[in-house]
Structures are given as C-alpha cells and as structure tokens.
C-alpha cells in the first residue's frame, strides 16, 4: 500500500456547472432569455412575476416560468393565471434549485414556443447563490420592508446577481425605507449593478424593467 498525492483541481459543483452550461446553450440556441430570480422569502418574487408575466403576455410576448418551492404549487397556480406555461418544482425541503431540476421540469416543453423563461428560485438568500441554473441573468429582489442593510448582510448573493429589483415601492414611505441608502448598499457589494424600483401592486417601474428584459434578449447583454 502506498500513499500518493493526486492533483485534481476540479470544481465541487462541476457536474451542476456542466449541466447548466449545456442548458444555457440549448436555451440560447432556441432564442430564449432566461432569468433566475432569487430573494429572501416574502420579498415579493411571485407578485412581481405575476405582474410582469401578465403584462408581457398581454403585449404578445411568449413567457414561461418554473417555480421552486419547498412545498405546495400555490405559486405556480398564481403565475399560470397570466396564461403562460408554468410548472412548479417542489424541492421537498431542499433549500435551492439545481440545474438538473430545471432540465427535468422542462423536458416536455416546446422551446420554440418560448421567448422568455423565468425561474423563481426557492426563497433563500444564501444557498441558491452557488448553483448555476443556466440562466443569462440572475435577478436579486429586495423589498422595502426588509431593511436597507440587507445587501451588506448577504453580500455573497447580492454580489452574484447581475440585476437588483427593489420591490413593494408603494410601502416605502410607510416603512420609512431610505431608498437612497438601500441603493448605496447594493452598489457597495456590487459596483455598477443595474437597479430597478418597482411596485407590482401599483405598476410603478414595471414597464422600464420589462423594457430592460426585452432589450437584454435582443442584445444578450446587461
């Protein structure tokens, strides 16, 4: 019996990463822009997606969504009202989505009938950051009710995102949220990040976010 050193330099999540890379190519080849939405529970991901998917579908855009939750298909039912293709991914306790779950749940979809794929990750600002789902852009949501310093408390997730959306803008005054400080804190952990401020309920900021999404698909850049 001998002991020896084996240099391998391999990513721990290389299996997920390879699957995600293959999926990204497949989705891009089909002309689909894919967004991965991450946030803490209750930040308004589903309400935001409900609103944007309804508006986009009404404007004739072909939208689909995969929704991750530990249990229940309540969110998928809400999003399906937009008329879009929606499927629930129940993780049964798993705190994040992985690329193989995305592949399995869209296996029977006709990709040529989709222009935009929205993946609503499990509400969790820690675990989903490590898992590439094959998305083009990662969107982090933060509601005005959560405190201005949340980006500083969860810098890994905020840093891993490409775009930030501040939600529940209609409650900002009631919560005495300092929006300027919230934006500053986002930019501290991710200099140059594009930030939107929206109210899914009142519609404020939704159109400019949709314009950005359309632009991103047209040019495939941030």
């Amino acid at each position, binding site marked *: 019996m001998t002991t020896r050193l084996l240099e391998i330099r391999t990513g721990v999540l290389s299996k997920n990463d390879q699957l995600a890379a293959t999926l990204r190519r497949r989705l891009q080849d089909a002309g689909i822009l894919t967004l991965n939405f991450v946030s803490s529970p209750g930040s308004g991901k589903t309400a935001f997606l409900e609103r944007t998917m309804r508006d986009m579908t009404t404007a004739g855009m072909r939208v689909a969504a995969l929704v991750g939750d530990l249990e229940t298909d309540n969110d998928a039912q809400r999003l399906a009202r937009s008329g879009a293709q929606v499927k629930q991914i129940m993780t049964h306790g798993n705190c994040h989505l992985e690329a193989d779950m995305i592949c399995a749940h869209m296996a029977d979809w006709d990709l040529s009938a989709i222009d935009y794929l929205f993946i609503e990750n499990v509400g969790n600002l820690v675990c989903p950051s490590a898992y590439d789902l094959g998305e083009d852009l990662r969107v982090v949501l933060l509601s005005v009710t959560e405190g201005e310093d949340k980006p500083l408390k969860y810098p890994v997730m905020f840093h891993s995102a490409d775009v930030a959306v501040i939600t529940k803008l209609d409650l900002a005054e009631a919560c005495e949220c300092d929006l300027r400080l919230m934006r500053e804190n986002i930019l501290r*952990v991710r200099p140059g990040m594009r930030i939107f401020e929206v109210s899914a309920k009142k519609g404020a900021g939704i159109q400019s976010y949709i314009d950005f999404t359309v632009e991103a698909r047209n040019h495939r850049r941030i």
Partner: protein
Amino acid sequence: MHELSIAYALVETATQAANDSGARAVTVVRLRLGALSGVVQDALQFSYDIATQGTLLEGSRLEVEALPVIIHCDRCDRDVALPNIQLFCCPVCNAPSAKIVQGRELEIASLEIEDDNPTA
C-alpha cells in the same frame, strides 16, 4: 444550510477521481474555498463526516484553504485583497470594482490517496 448538498457533491467528485486512479482509499481532501463561494466552512466540516460515511472517503480529513476576495483595481492597476466582503472598493484608493480575481473558488485542489501501486 446547503453544505450537506455541497458535501455530497464533493464526495461524488472526489470518489470519481479516486476511482479513476485506482485508489483503495482517500485519506485527505484539500479544498480551496473562496469567500464568495457561499459555503460556510464549519457547516461543511460537519456535513463532510456524514457525507463520507460508507464511501472511499470515510475517515478522511478535509483540509480547507480559505481564500479572501481579490479584486482588480483599474485605478491602481493591480490586484488587491479585500479586508471584508461588505465593500467592493479598492482598500488603497477607494475606487469601486466588481472585477473579481479570486474569491468564487469551490474546488478540490488535491487528494491524498492510498493505492496498491508500488511504483507510484
């Protein structure tokens, strides 16, 4: 707490590499862990003992090299380490930068294995 998932992925990746080189057992796993990897070292150590049970890695030691974030500062034109991950600014000149040089690592650097190969 996704460290258990990470630990299982680690065991799978390491087992494959060890099998490919004919190892009978793995005694040490060396991991490079960036400050932006989203993985908590203590939680991973705890999960490691669970995930390695009944595998080639059972009883092995996990050695973690913690890597700070290094950004490239355009203004100073050099790479600088960040003292914390709450502020992505050059600690020398204060210019903001999101150009990550190091800090996202979550990779197995090497394994120490036992095998029957006397020539190795």
